[in-house]
């Protein structure tokens, strides 16, 4: 079974801090995604990566950046956290156009 592991389940940060969210998958998937999940807004794509060192912006990339130095790891970076980035962050991976496998999520609170 595919395992997508997000490093933290809960995270509390202060406004202006630099925040790293880590995601690791163990099935050699080329695609990896970062979504944020907000009530009433559903899942919105922040960034995705279709290969090592390759990335594309999703629908809401402002205030975020990503890093994919190794195939199994995809990091989401909040350069200067703001309160409107308080959210549930979901990482996912997939093989080509196959189904997405999701991590359990990181609930980030920015105070």
């Amino acid at each position, binding site marked *: 079974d595919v395992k997508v592991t997000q490093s933290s389940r809960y995270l509390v940060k202060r406004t202006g801090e630099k925040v790293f969210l880590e995601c690791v998958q163990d099935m050699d998937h080329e*695609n990896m*995604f970062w*979504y944020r999940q907000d009530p*009433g*807004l*559903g*899942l*919105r*794509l922040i960034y*995705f990566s*279709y290969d090592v060192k390759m990335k*594309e912006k*999703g*629908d809401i990339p402002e205030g975020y950046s990503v890093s994919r130095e190794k195939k199994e790891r995809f990091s989401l970076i909040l350069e200067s956290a703001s309160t409107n980035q308080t959210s549930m962050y*979901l990482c*996912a991976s*997939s*093989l*080509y*156009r*196959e*189904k*997405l496998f*999701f*991590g*359990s*999520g990181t609930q980030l609170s920015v105070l």
Partner: protein
Amino acid sequence: AQRVTQPEKLLSVFKGAPVELKCNYSYSGSPELFWYVQYSRQRLQLLLRHISRESIKGFTADLNKGETSFHLKKPFAQEEDSAMYYCALMGSSNTGKLIFGQGTTLQVKP
């Protein structure tokens, strides 16, 4: 632009009643449509995709290109169907990127 709309935030039915969760999409090409489900305290997971034409846990969904809809249906709801349901669209690019709707919470009452 690609867009997925789920008009109902909450759908509440009694056990044994039929269920229909609505999904409409906007896409200029030939999309692939999915339903994902998130049960309480579990990860988001695939429920079904239209190309497989399978029935999973009694749920079915038909892609209606004329109405640009992909409604999820089940003839008799069970309490264990209570969950958050997301409709999603994959465009024709090779990246496998999914665009999700806003989600519908299904509450099945005993």
